[in-house]
């Protein structure tokens, strides 16, 4: 009985392997076919982005300006998944303190934490100048929040970074993203318009340049940081199953 079950399982795995390999092979064929098309998909983003948006990082220019609507959508996906997680799991509670690191480690990390915070802040504020942007910086901030939880224990971390602050930060950031987009509607250009609304461009290459792009980066950074860290806290603060 058990033997035959094992055999059928093996056969099933083999069939699944053959199926997925054929899927992969057809995908390879399709990709090669698609990239073999004689075409230069140069839409002039690289040529025009500095003039159009004032951002040196073309990827940020596309994310925050040319295709800013996608970014709003993706920020809403994060927003909704945080809400879904909060709806599935209960409000986080930390009753049992898990074993935390030794005092020396904690002291050492406590001195290092301000240094750690430099990196995400740099990434967020220089999103239009160097690699990175709101998302990368925001996730790094969220990872730092997780770090404080792991190193200093939940109770202290929750005292320093209260959950309601994260929630409110996320809601306000999401709301301000939408309202900032409406600015373009009022000036008659279109939703999420940047330089065309009359915002000064600044000198490309400097910190204050790119019109609304740094502002959007900041908003997205706050939103992603708050959202993802409250995701972690909700998951971690979920009580273990009672035996």
């Amino acid at each position: 009985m058990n033997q035959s079950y094992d055999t059928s399982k093996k056969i099933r795995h083999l069939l699944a392997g053959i199926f997925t390999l054929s899927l992969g092979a057809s995908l390879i064929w399709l990709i090669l076919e698609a990239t073999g098309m004689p075409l230069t998909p140069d839409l002039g983003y690289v040529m025009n982005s500095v003039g159009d948006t004032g951002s040196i990082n073309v990827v940020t220019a596309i994310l925050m300006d040319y295709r800013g609507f996608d970014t709003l959508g993706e920020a809403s996906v994060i927003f909704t998944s945080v809400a879904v997680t909060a709806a599935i799991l209960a409000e986080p509670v930390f009753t049992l303190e898990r074993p935390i690191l030794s005092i020396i480690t904690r002291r050492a990390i406590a001195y290092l934490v301000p240094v750690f915070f430099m990196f995400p802040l740099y990434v967020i504020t220089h999103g239009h100048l160097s690699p990175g942007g709101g998302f990368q910086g925001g996730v790094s901030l969220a990872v730092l929040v997780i770090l404080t939880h792991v190193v200093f224990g939940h109770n202290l971390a929750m005292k320093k970074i209260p959950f309601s602050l994260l929630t409110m930060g996320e809601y306000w950031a999401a709301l301000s993203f939408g309202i900032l987009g409406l600015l373009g509607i009022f000036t008659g250009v279109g939703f999420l318009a940047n330089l065309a609304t009359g915002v000064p461009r600044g000198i490309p290459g400097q910190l204050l340049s790119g019109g609304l792009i740094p502002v959007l980066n900041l908003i997205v950074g706050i939103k992603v940081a708050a959202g993802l860290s409250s995701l972690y806290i909700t998951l971690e603060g979920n009580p273990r199953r009672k035996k």
Partner: protein
Amino acid sequence: MNSLGEYIALIIILACLVLSALSAVLIRGQITTIIVLSVFSVLCAVLFAMLQAVDVAMAEAVIGAGFLTALFVTAADKTRGQGS
């Protein structure tokens, strides 16, 4: 991607990528799987950096190797017990 050396390095990374993906899927233990997955994410990030996609590399590094690993470990910790 100018020299032969870089090309060979790329091929090695790609091979490691496939291997780590395969072992992440096939290995049984949960924590091992998660660690292999985070190795996979780091390799992805290195690959993206080599392929001129620094922004994506950064995002993959912080999300795949940092944030998601933390979530996975938490979830694995919460689902450890008598069931499997």
